[in-house]
């Protein structure tokens, strides 16, 4: 089936099998390997991308369902060499250990802060409920999100 999807600001036209998962098309179809497959069971959130501005697990969406939509991956966040504030915050607060969950954590954080620019610690933890860190580095991840909110002009309560 023919699809037309804007990914990180570039329009892609492709023919895909209906069963192709969005994450597989992003990685293998157009080389967006920043988005990773973690669990294959919809649990871990490592494959989180923004679909029309909202976070989704790209292992749980068919590529054909993204037809006509706009996708933002971790590779589309920076502005040239200028990192997105959420990326900066994760670096500054050491919000990662092995780094595998990081693309998903960052994308979920972007979504969370777009809806709630001033999250409490509890709201941060609930907002990242769909993302697992198997290194269990949650404490610094929560700090990173709070710092990102500060960088972006909000202030965490």
């Amino acid at each position: 089936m023919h699809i037309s999807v804007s990914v990180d600001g570039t329009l892609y036209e492709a023919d895909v099998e209906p069963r192709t998962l969005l994450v597989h098309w992003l990685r293998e179809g157009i080389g967006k390997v920043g988005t990773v497959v973690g669990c294959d069971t919809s649990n871990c959130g490592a494959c989180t991308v923004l679909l029309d501005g909202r976070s989704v697990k790209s292992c749980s969406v068919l590529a054909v369902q993204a037809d006509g939509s706009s996708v933002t991956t971790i590779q589309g966040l920076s502005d040239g060499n200028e990192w997105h504030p959420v990326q900066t915050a994760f670096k500054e607060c050491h919000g990662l250990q092995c780094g595998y969950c990081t693309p998903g954590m960052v994308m979920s954080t972007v979504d969370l802060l777009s809806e709630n620019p001033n999250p409490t610690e509890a709201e941060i933890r609930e907002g990242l409920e769909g993302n697992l860190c198997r290194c269990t580095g949650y404490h610094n991840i929560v700090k990173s999100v709070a710092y990102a909110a500060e960088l972006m002009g909000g202030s965490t309560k």
Partner: protein
Amino acid sequence: MIPVAFDYVRPTSIDEAVAALAAGGEDAKVMAGGQSLMPVLRLRLGAPSLIVDCSRIDEMIGIRDSGDAIVIGSATTHHAVMHDSLVNEYVSLLAKATATVADPQIRHRGTMGGSLAHADPAGDLPAVAAALDATFTIAGPGGRRSVGASDFFVDYFTTAVGDDEVLVNVSFPKRAGWGAHYEKFNRTAQAWAIVGVAATVRMDGGRIAEARIGLTNVAPMPVRARSVEAALAGAADIAAVAAAAESAADGTSPTTDIHADAEYRNHLTRVLTRRAVVKAAGW
């Protein structure tokens, strides 16, 4: 894993969807947000020959006020439902229960109607639909029909929606000013409910005048705790709620699994019913 190959169509009207299902036969499957179906496909627990994607049928999306009820298109996402002002004002129990469904990413894609039509006994929304006496509009080759919540849920993962039909919308009678709470007991973040209790109450002069309670995951289908509802009329304090909640597990048939045995589920049902009603009453 990669799903078994299937054909895919994306109708833009209910009529087209019904026609696609008729053409696809018994191996055709409706998909809305796909958040329950995708894991099934990926793990190859199911292998439909045709997916009918109903996520872009305008009539199935959105929330409107029909006068006495709030009508919600079946393909409206959980995220849209929980943030909608009409839902929060008139069907607050649904808003509160929806906010506990899965996680933010799943709520962005997953739909209210998909969750209800999937009818997982551990899903959160069937108990809400039962407690609120929702009405389901179903479209099929013979036209449209309405089914009440007590007839909609038929068995485990089975509803009144036939293989050749689609759920169009769900109508919830307005209950402005009712207090509501969904109390869910689960093991970890995003886990299914071991037991859940959906409670909504109408208060009058500091007493509970009327109560509606639906139970999640204590039977193949959602259960109304009618004896508790009756006993709560006139309750004026937490002790009265606790006494009424003692009969919450009557008429349930919980299973025993690795998370909890049946007797423990009965215990949870009584405790969570007390908590849910107390919170719904604002005590």
